[in-house]
């Protein structure tokens, strides 16, 4: 018989109520674990896959006034450009203050070409950058040679320059949007003549519902040659990772170094999503605080009740020579056992809920929810709440006057 045995015996004696307390704590922990796991995976996916959602900044030439629409974005007229934007002009973007927030920079030259007596849009792109920007692209066949080279680490500007100097491999290869390929009856491996140049179709994009379905993608340099507009671009799409800076600020910085371009922020899905996730996170924090508080209060009232119920027994312990500290240890020992059990059960239940939700919440499926730090935090948090809630009852118990307590029969 030691203090710890007394704690355990005391728990066994009031098993029903203690199980109820355990259940309350476990419910609180399960709620927190679920909320934290979901919001964390959402935040994680928003922050790390921002570029998957495409561009959030576009640049078009300043002087364009006639319109061709591309991807919902009004771009300079394909046929009647007045002002010009050169690929080389993009280089200063590499030295703006928030340059490291620019994750993809995809310049292109969009122009109209006639193909089998019909007008189609041809986009000259730097394939590695374009593919990185449009991670949702699926290709039948292949991308042009070199298109899936090492991901672009430096800014598109630098890379584009380097590419121009080195000369591009796969230069005469093209990728078609699915609808265009269907309408023209073309498949990977077929040849195509554009403005007198023979192009080999290496890939057809899977239909994705965007304007890309209608477009002929070729290498930027080739498009510039075909359009007789060497070095020129008329659209730049930028994916900027901006969880810590407003997009508007990036727009301002780019506009400063690129006076000949019109820089616009595009409010795209991911921004909205980020805001939703932010709100969800704030909500989760509030709920967590409330749940923690309620958990603590339940511990407090249950343990206070237990102390009142046992004051007689506690008086006996004091008469037998238990110090106040011993009484505190008995009460806190019980709280420790309950909290540990509640923490473990709650964590397991929370992970169970997460596993159940996994198929319905994309973000959960993308990240692994098994985080030992979360398990430790759940256990530690429950311990802290359980012990904090039991502290006052323990002090009350220790302060009981043995004579009064023993008289109270």
């Amino acid at each position, binding site marked *: 018989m030691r203090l710890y045995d007394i704690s355990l015996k005391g728990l066994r004696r009031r098993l029903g109520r203690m199980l109820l307390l355990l259940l309350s704590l476990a419910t609180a922990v399960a709620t927190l674990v679920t909320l934290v796991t979901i919001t964390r995976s959402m935040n994680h996916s928003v922050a790390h896959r921002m570029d998957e959602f495409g561009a959030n900044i576009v640049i078009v030439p300043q002087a364009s006034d006639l319109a061709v629409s591309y991807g919902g974005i009004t771009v300079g007229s394909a046929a009647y450009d007045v002002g010009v934007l050169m690929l080389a002009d993009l280089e200063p973007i590499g030295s703006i203050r928030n340059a490291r927030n620019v994750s993809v920079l995809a310049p292109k030259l969009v122009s109209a070409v006639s193909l089998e007596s019909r007008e189609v849009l041809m986009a000259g792109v730097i394939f590695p950058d374009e593919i990185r920007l449009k991670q949702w692209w699926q290709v039948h066949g292949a991308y042009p040679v070199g298109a899936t080279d090492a991901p672009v680490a430096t800014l598109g500007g630098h890379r584009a320059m380097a590419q121009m100097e080195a000369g591009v491999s796969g230069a005469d290869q093209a990728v078609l949007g699915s609808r265009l390929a269907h309408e023209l009856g073309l498949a990977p491996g077929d040849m195509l003549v554009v403005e007198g140049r023979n192009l080999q179709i290496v890939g057809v994009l899977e239909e994705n519902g965007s304007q890309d379905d209608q477009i002929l993608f070729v290498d930027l340099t080739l498009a510039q040659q075909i359009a007789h507009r060497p070095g020129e671009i008329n659209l730049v799409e930028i994916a900027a990772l901006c969880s810590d800076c407003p997009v508007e600020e990036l727009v301002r910085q780019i506009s400063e170094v690129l006076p000949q371009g019109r820089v616009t922020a595009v409010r795209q899905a991911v921004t909205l999503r980020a805001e939703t996730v932010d709100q969800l996170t704030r909500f989760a924090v509030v709920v967590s605080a409330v749940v923690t508080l309620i958990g603590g209060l339940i511990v407090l009232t249950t343990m206070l009740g237990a102390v009142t119920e046992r004051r007689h027994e506690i008086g006996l312990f004091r*008469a037998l020579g238990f*110090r106040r500290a*011993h009484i505190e240890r008995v009460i806190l020992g019980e709280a420790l056992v309950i909290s540990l059990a509640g923490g473990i059960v709650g964590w397991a239940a929370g992970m169970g809920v997460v596993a159940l939700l996994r198929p319905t919440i994309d973000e959960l499926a993308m990240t692994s929810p098994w985080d030992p730090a979360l398990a430790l935090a759940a256990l530690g948090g429950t311990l802290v709440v359980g012990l904090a809630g039991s502290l006052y009852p323990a002090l009350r118990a220790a302060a009981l006057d043995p004579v009064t307590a023993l008289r109270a029969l």
Partner: protein
Amino acid sequence: MIELCDVTKTYNPQGAPVHALYQANLRVNEGEFAAIVGPSGSGKSTLLSVIGAMNPPTQGSMLVDGIDVYSLSVEKQADFRHEYLGFVFQQLQLLPYLTALENVLLGLAIARMRRADKVQRAREVLARVGLAGKEDRLPGELSGGEQGRVAVGRALVNEPPLILADEPTGNLDSNTGVQILTLLQELNAAGHTVLMVTHDAQATTYAQRIIPILDGRLVDGDHDITKNENPAINGNGKR
């Protein structure tokens, strides 16, 4: 061993004050078996709890082996109870959900001993109070007299010099009461000082000394009944 100097204990000092003890002076010597005798409400339990280091007097002091117990810190007072005192309470105060052995072990819960030694000691004590073989019974499975013996066993297990018993026979029929009194007498013979509260005339015959109390005062007539001429009482007491 124990010396009370002008001890007054007043309850409800603000409202209508009750002097449960009033200027009590008392000396209990080592090896004595003394009975505090008085009518209900006379302050017997109060006196016992003051001596038991659980109830600080309003005035006066209590010395145990020359040490003023109530000048010690609360925790030291608790240590004093653990090392010096064994309590047998009027209502016995056995925990109903613990076995006889576990109830006795409660007296050793905070002792610095190995677990096996504690169990060994508790078993010995239970055997000594005549409960060998009933270690694993719950109090509810024991007779009133057996429960009383478990309570005595618990008071005894840390081998205290002084045993304080508050009406140990209060709830028992005279037969089982006699068993407990005999047990206390044996413990006294084995060297424990025993201080017992009772209002039972039969019980007083087991003590060597009677300390009458009335309205909180230790009245004259404190006498050693071993020197009593009445052979009938003497004979009973020496049984």
